């Protein structure tokens, strides 16, 4: 028999509000009511659904971080009910209140019977995953001048000439100078002053700085807040503010500095990369990648977009290094294409990617051509390594002479792989079939790609072996009973998201793409085209795409986690650390991979 107060409350509480009176009565019969007093800690791992009736309950993470407050109509415990995993959160009663404990059986019964209720709790769960992620963004409002201004003082004396000033500005790549006399700030000079006060008035280059500078400039203390600087600049309509430290001038803050500080955007990093004049400068830029990655993740940029951005940065570093190499080595003796393989080619690079690159040359790499590109490749590969993109352990790098070939050389190599495939060779070679041009001639690259695709579409034996290679590893379907864990060098165990997931999909999709002669190398792009051309069912394509996104997302989050804890970034996921929903989704994804593998087997691995 039902207690009216309980059923009435349930009837007003989403998602139970969609149940009819009889169902509500049944549900309420499986409820126990408990009264908590402030400071009581709620036993949460009880395998029941907690429904807050009155009072306020605060949820803390195992690091004692406040996650959320639960009030009338809020739930807890669905995580464990949905996944069977216990939580390490603590729930503390903050304001006396009643909770309803709904028995697990009734909860599940309700979910099975009413799809909408099931969906509601699943959504609640996935929302929770996003919601509770740390949000400790360094607020724009609390940035200080010292956080963004460079500790670099570029000063000139008042008796020096306008020409000296112009030269110093160009050499230091700045647009303004501090004018100092006996270490005391007496004025500032901007490139605009040189234009409007010197050139426009036809003054000679020998004009003294003291005649054209702005005297007694505004200045700001380096411990001031950034918004104070913004205010001061707009108030006086100026773009340059000398920065002082205890009254002594220590640098210059420009409007551009402020704008840049407000833009945690990869565009700025890429712009920065293209301004660097040395490998050391590029290394400094690359040190910002980790911070950028954290920003991206805070802004909830999905993993595939983040992968795209990280790849673009690697591309920019590569391009700039090639430029710098040419500055050092002179003009190249012939046309070339700098190629990337693997994840960089596929635009799904992660933070721990290593180098996979090569050179495609117009001429045979002998004599000066050979020497030049050997030096160029060495410079670029070492430079990338210095920027944190580690040298390829398998030596798939342009610095390896075997990977600096002419079009004829590459064409011959691909032809061999395709015409006389051996499983072992293909296992190693499959990475070469995802290739993209990063710098240099596109025409040269296109010729190679056409050549490759023409061969692969007509090579059933090659596709047979490539498929066999793709099927060698399987997704850990038994994940939930017996963890299949790989060990990394440091004896940490975990589920390898790349080897056991992402790569499996990449490999499968590659087989189809080479079969269909698709130029696209990005896995998502390949899947789209495969579906568009009717090569694979659009539903299968979508499923694989979803599984791929999910695994990439988990890996991206894992990397974020590693970064924040200053660990080495690895692909090994500790099963104890993943949320229940992720576990559900992983299981689904593995099933999708398994199915797709068996389709590839049927299609490409029948008796020839």
């Amino acid at each position: 028999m039902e207690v009216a107060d309980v059923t009435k409350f349930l009837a007003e509480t989403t998602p139970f509000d969609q149940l009819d009176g009889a169902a509500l009565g049944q549900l309420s019969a499986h409820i126990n009511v408990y009264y908590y007093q402030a400071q009581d800690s709620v036993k949460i791992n009880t395998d029941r659904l907690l429904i807050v009736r009155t009072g306020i309950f605060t949820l803390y993470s195992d690091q004692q971080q406040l996650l959320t407050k639960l009030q009338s109509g809020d739930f807890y415990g669905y995580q464990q009910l949905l996944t069977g995993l216990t939580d390490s959160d603590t729930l503390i009663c903050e304001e006396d209140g009643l909770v309803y404990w709904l028995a697990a059986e009734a909860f599940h019964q309700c979910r099975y019977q009413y799809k909408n209720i099931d969906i509601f709790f699943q959504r609640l769960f996935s929302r929770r995953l996003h919601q509770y992620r740390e949000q400790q963004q360094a607020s724009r409002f609390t940035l200080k001048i010292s956080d963004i201004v460079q500790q670099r003082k570029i000063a000139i004396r008042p008796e020096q000439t306008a020409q000296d000033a112009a030269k110093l500005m160009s050499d230091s790549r700045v647009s303004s100078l501090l004018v100092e006399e006996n270490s005391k700030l007496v004025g500032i000079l901007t490139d605009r002053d040189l234009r409007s006060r010197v050139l426009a008035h036809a003054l000679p280059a020998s004009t003294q700085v003291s005649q054209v500078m702005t005297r007694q400039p505004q200045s700001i203390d380096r411990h001031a807040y950034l918004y104070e600087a913004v205010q001061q600049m707009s108030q006086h309509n100026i773009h340059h503010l000398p920065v002082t430290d205890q009254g002594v001038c220590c640098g210059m803050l420009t409007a551009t500095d402020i704008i840049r500080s407000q833009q945690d955007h990869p565009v700025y990093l890429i712009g920065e990369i293209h301004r660097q004049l040395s490998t050391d400068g590029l290394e400094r830029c690359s040190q910002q990648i980790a911070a950028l990655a954290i920003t991206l993740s805070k802004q909830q940029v999905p993993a595939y977009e983040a992968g795209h951005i990280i790849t673009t940065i690697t591309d920019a570093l590569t391009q700039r290094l090639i430029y710098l190499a040419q500055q050092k080595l002179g003009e190249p003796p012939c046309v070339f294409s700098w190629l990337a393989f693997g994840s960089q080619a596929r635009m799904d690079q992660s933070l721990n990617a290593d180098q996979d690159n090569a050179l495609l040359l117009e001429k045979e790499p002998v004599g000066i051509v050979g020497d030049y590109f050997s030096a160029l490749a060495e410079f670029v590969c070492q430079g990338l390594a210095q920027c944190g993109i580690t040298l390829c352990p398998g030596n798939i790098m342009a610095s390896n002479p075997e990977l600096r070939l002419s079009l004829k050389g590459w064409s011959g190599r691909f032809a061999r792989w395709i015409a006389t495939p051996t499983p072992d060779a293909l296992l190693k070679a499959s990475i070469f079939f995802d290739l993209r041009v990063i710098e240099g001639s596109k025409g040269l690259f296109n010729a190679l790609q056409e050549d490759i695709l023409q061969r692969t579409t007509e090579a059933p034996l090659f596709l047979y072996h490539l498929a066999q290679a793709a099927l060698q590893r399987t997704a850990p379907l038994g994940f939930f009973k017996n963890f299949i864990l790989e060990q990394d060098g440091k004896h940490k165990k975990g589920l390898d998201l790349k080897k056991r997931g992402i790569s499996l999909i990449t490999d499968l999709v590659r087989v189809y793409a080479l079969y269909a002669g698709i130029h696209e190398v990005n896995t998502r792009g390949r899947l789209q085209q495969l579906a568009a051309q009717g090569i694979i069912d659009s539903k299968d394509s979508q499923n694989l795409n979803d599984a791929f996104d999910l695994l990439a997302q988990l890996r991206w989050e894992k990397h974020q986690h590693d970064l924040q804890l200053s660990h080495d970034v690895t692909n090994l996921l500790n099963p104890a650390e993943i949320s229940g929903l992720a576990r559900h989704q992983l299981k689904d994804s593995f099933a999708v991979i398994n199915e797709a593998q068996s389709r590839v087997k049927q299609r490409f691995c029948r008796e020839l």
Partner: protein
Amino acid sequence: MFGWLLRKRTAFSEVVNHFINTPFPPSSTPVDQANFLALDLELTGLNPRKDHIVSIGWVPVRGQEVVLSEAKHYLINSPVSVGQSAVYHGLHDHQLKNAADLAEILTELLAQYAGYIFVAHHSRLDEQCLRFACQRCFGKAPRFRFIDTMQMEWQRLLRQGKVVKHDALKLPNCLKRHGLPDMANHQALEDAYSSALLLLSQLKLGGNTMTLSDLYLLSR
């Protein structure tokens, strides 16, 4: 389940004996380990000797959790008209025509909740009525252990040095004071449930070290 009890009228007294022979937990038992049964009766009047039970509602509290799966509400076949009492409990004679037999319901109560501490708001009336009803049905009545949430509330307020007004001890006002949900309506089960909630709150306020004997003292 209680078929054996109902077969013969003489067997009714068996259930009373069963209740009598089931010991109550020792008074040193901590309150969170005791089993309670919150219950409420609706009557045709306020005189336990003359008036009759028209409905009964109960819900057990075990481990300080109100167990709704055992919440019960029965309308009782009354030998007399509900008369003017309908104004309070809203039950009319025609609704009670197909109601349950009092002996049957008392049998269920005694058989299932032997050894339980009964809880009611203003328990004296309920206790007396139950005893008279048992007497009438079975020829003898067991001794109940009752605690009274109203009495406990009174003691609590007195200790705080408050002047207790006449209305302050009524169940709805107690609920309000404890920040508990309002009663949906005046009905035996709702009242029993509300007094169960009130008990939970009172137990918490009393601290975690209370024993049954503390409760007996408080509800005296």
